[in-house]
């Protein structure tokens, strides 16, 4: 049976394509982002970034900056207002274990680009100019930013990060099985450090409301996290801090944690008792989280037919000196493939940078890249077709937790993806396919991500004009949350979508977590559905209590909500409009707030994952070393699809970022000075329009019971495995096996 939301048993809005309800606001420029909200008497803050990666500030000279007309104040560690003493107070809702970075806290420099001063002025240009006049002297120490050089100090993180499963205990004997295996492959892999680079730079506008109260517009993937952070750091009550962020100009994980511009803007606003905005520059977007530098080794032992006999996946990840950032890198290998001898390890090494941050499919992008290139190597080593090899090692259960999958349509993804792509026409021999003077390569890979749900609440209000407003505090980070929640609410109450408004990104709304981990559709979707069902029940009670009610003696489970009316199922002539029921009930509105969380009973029995099969065509001009990705087919199994239009866009976006990861994106650290050198969009290359050609998305729907909506989430799965499929296609085209990504020109030209 297919999961439906509607009381009629047939969904009208859920499962069909709808344009974004926030589309008109975004295409007309009326959608406002955090750094765009106006406030009377607004002052502008500009951050001065530190010039060394490690050491101390010995002197900081601000007089010249302060003398510039229009400058209001220059904040440094020497004059900053008092904030919370214990570093515990700076830990936000998704912080990894450790002591969070505190801007302007003292004279210690922890990493390159660390904020060392905030110049606040009457206008932006004056603040920017004055910031250039702040002079800082340092006692510099030699930074260590090379993860390889720190490998001897690697450690198991003593405190595990909430929500991040550490590697499972080994099973079987991976070492002995590897030694005994007829086919052995053991290689190192690396994916370059990447920066999220959302198009909207981080910004916070803090509106001084008087009497110590503030309204904050913050670039964040969930305003409740910023509110909690501000309250704890500045010793404020939550009702003194309202945080809003109706639109987010790209997150990809870097908007999960409150960043330093928020701290600085709130600090300045409270000190000056005045509204303050702080917007970071593009180069300052390289001065906090990034996808960590992870050194990996994958060792596969197999029989001559490619059946895995030993699987070992070891990872060493860089983290900062002050926090133990952790993500799931190696577990995916044992989730995707069935092997009786498995050993997985994940260790950290500290370097003198900021703490890494979750970046789209954190850990999976990195770990699955290594695994899926290794599997392609195994296919060639054993003479197997890459798809057949994966099917031969297909796992029916998550052996890391000893549970069957609640649903797993990966076989159908392989089949449908291969068919759409034309995989059967592939000549497996490297360098065998050409077109004109270009080499053609066809490669494939698998993707996997966990289907998550978080405790969330949502509210709904139906007014006597028949209009419904639903919402909560989570953010729509471009994923389409406004639209799918509108669809769900309209479905439950049988209202046209035009009569439903969704509000998000406001701490005055029901509390919900940050939008991340691909959990928002399941979490907020279920909470909205429950709140609307509560309203349905309440209005039904009013309808049934009406004099001579057509619904008298009818039970709730025998009525349907359709076209703004409650009707007896199968007998539309017996119906009452929602508006009439509310009039009879003498109410002008019906409100409900409901919360929803993961089904722990189901989770105990079943594992929940999204899967994908990605097929890629590349064309390569060998003289120039230029790789063009000409075709991608991405077949996705992610449970129920609420809105095929926005869902497809989620996958397209993941694939595009995967292409960037495979061929372009690389934050280059100069280890002698501990600094990311290419901190701008001219030198940190992300895909542009000319880099992207034909992308095809297939959704293989699954019936899953991990949550009442039957959804699994789509934000991450599109990127996972994409880079591996490209690397495998590059091998097929050229015979060159590149295990150090991105695959740039230098790696292809001999």
């Amino acid at each position, binding site marked *: 049976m297919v999961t439906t939301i509607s009381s009629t048993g047939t969904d009208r809005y859920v499962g069909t394509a709808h*344009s*974004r309800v*926030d*589309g*008109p606001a*975004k*295409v*007309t*420029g*009326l*959608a*406002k982002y955090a750094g*765009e909200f106006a406030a009377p008497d607004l002052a502008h803050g500009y951050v001065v970034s530190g010039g060394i990666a490690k050491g101390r500030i010995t002197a900081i000279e601000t007089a*010249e900056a302060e003398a*510039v*007309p*229009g400058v209001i104040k220059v904040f440094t560690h020497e004059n900053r207002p008092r904030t919370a003493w214990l570093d515990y107070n700076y830990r936000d809702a998704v912080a990894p274990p450790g002591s969070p970075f505190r801007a302007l806290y003292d004279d210690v420099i922890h990493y390159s680009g660390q904020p060392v001063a905030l110049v606040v002025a009457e*206008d*932006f*240009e*004056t603040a920017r*100019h004055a*910031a*250039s*006049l*702040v002079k800082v002297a340092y006692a510099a120490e030699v930074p260590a930013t090379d993860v390889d050089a720190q490998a001897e100090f690697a450690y198991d993180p003593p405190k595990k990060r909430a929500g991040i499963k550490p590697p499972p205990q080994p099973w079987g004997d991976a070492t002995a099985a590897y030694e005994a295996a007829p086919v052995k492959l053991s290689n190192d892999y690396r994916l370059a450090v990447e920066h999220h*680079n*959302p*198009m*909207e*730079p981080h910004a916070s506008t803090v509106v001084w409301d008087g009497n110590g109260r503030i309204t904050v517009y913050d670039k964040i993937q969930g305003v409740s996290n910023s509110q909690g952070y501000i309250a704890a750091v500045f010793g404020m009550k939550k009702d003194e801090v309202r945080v809003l962020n109706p*639109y987010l*100009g*790209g*997150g*990809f994980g870097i908007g999960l944690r409150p960043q330093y511009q928020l701290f600085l803007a709130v600090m300045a606003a409270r000190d000056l008792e005045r509204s303050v905005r702080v917007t970071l*520059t*593009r180069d300052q977007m390289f001065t906090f989280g990034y996808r960590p530098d992870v050194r990996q080794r994958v060792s596969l032992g197999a029989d001559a037919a490619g059946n895995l006999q030993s699987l070992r996946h070891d990872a060493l990840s860089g983290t900062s000196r002050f926090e133990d950032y952790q993500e799931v890198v190696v577990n995916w290998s044992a989730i995707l493939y069935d092997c009786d001898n498995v050993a997985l390890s994940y260790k950290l090494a500290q370097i003198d940078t900021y703490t890494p941050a979750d970046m789209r499919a954190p850990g999976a992008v990195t770990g699955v890249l290594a695994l899926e290139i290794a599997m392609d190597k195994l296919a060639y080593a054993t003479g197997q077709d890459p798809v057949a090899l994966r099917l031969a090692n297909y796992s029916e259960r998550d052996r890391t937790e000893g549970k069957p999958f609640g649903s797993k349509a990966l076989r159908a993804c392989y089949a449908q993806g291969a068919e759409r792509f034309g995989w059967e026409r592939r000549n497996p021999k490297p360098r065998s396919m050409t077109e004109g003077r270009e080499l053609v390569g066809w490669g494939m890979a698998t993707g996997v991500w966990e289907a998550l749900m978080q405790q969330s609440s949502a509210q709904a209000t139906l007014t006597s004009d028949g209009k419904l407003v639903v919402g909560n505090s989570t953010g729509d*980070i*471009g*994923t389409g949350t406004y639209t799918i929640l509108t669809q769900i609410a309209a479905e439950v109450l049988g209202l046209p979508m035009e009569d439903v408004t969704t509000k998000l990104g406001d701490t005055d709304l029901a509390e919900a977590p940050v939008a991340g981990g691909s959990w928002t559709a399941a979490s907020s979707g279920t909470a909205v559905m429950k709140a609307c069902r509560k309203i349905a029940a309440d209005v039904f009670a009013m309808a049934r209590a009406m004099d001579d009610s057509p619904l008298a003696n009818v039970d709730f489970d025998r009525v349907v909500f359709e076209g703004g009316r409650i009707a007896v199922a199968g007998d539309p002539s017996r119906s009452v409009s929602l508006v009439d029921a509310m009039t009879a009930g003498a109410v002008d509105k019906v409100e409900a707030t409901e919360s929803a969380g993961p089904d722990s009973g189901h989770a105990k029995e079943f594992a929940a994952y999204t899967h994908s099969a990605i097929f890629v065509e590349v064309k390569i001009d060998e003289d120039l070393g230029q790789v063009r990705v000409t075709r991608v087919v991405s077949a996705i199994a992610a449970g129920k699809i609420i809105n095929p239009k*926005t869902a*497809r*866009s989620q996958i*397209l*976006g993941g694939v*595009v*970022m995967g292409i960037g990861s495979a061929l372009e994106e690389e934050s280059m650290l100069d280890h002698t000075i501990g600094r990311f050198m290419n901190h*701008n*969009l*001219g030198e940190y290359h*992300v*895909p*542009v*329009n*000319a*880099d*992207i*050609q*034909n992308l095809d998305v297939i959704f293989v729907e699954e019936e899953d019971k991990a949550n009442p909506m039957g959804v699994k989430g789509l934000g991450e799965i599109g990127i996972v495995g994409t880079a591996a499929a490209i690397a495998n296609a590059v091998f097929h085209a050229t015979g060159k096996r590149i295990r150090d990504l991105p695959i740039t020109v230098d790696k292809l030209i001999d």
Partner: protein
Amino acid sequence: MLIDSGSPRAMETVGISLTINGEVRTLEVAPWTTLLDLLRERLDLTGTKKGCDHGQCGACTVLVDGKRINSCLALAVMKDGATVTTIEGLTEAGTLHPLQAAFVEHDAFQCGYCTPGQICSAAGMIAEGHARSRDEIREAMSGNICRCGAYTNIVDAIEDVMQSGAAR
């Protein structure tokens, strides 16, 4: 930092006149104010976005005398007398410009931050008249980064408008 200010003094302003979205504006601006900052900070036309402030991302694209430019790379004083159209000016009497409608229809954006720049750039590109094929559209639109990766939908939307001949 390299800038030597000499003796601090208030920045003197210069009088300019701009026609912005059909309205003549007489303004006093500082010489160091970019067209982008003028639009966003002074005139509350925040539809034009700042993504990099270095002409590398295209989020700030507006039409100046009908041509698409990066407004972050233009000082406002250099554009005295010019006609400026921003994303807010493409909508006429509450009716979406064909490109705006096509972007919604083709889901040619996700977070929406690059979108005003993409649409203004597309309007400028169509007026240039050079791009005819999808490949040429891709090439001509490559100055506008979309980190959400909506490129294929952006090309679909633009192609749709070009084929219908609806663009002005």
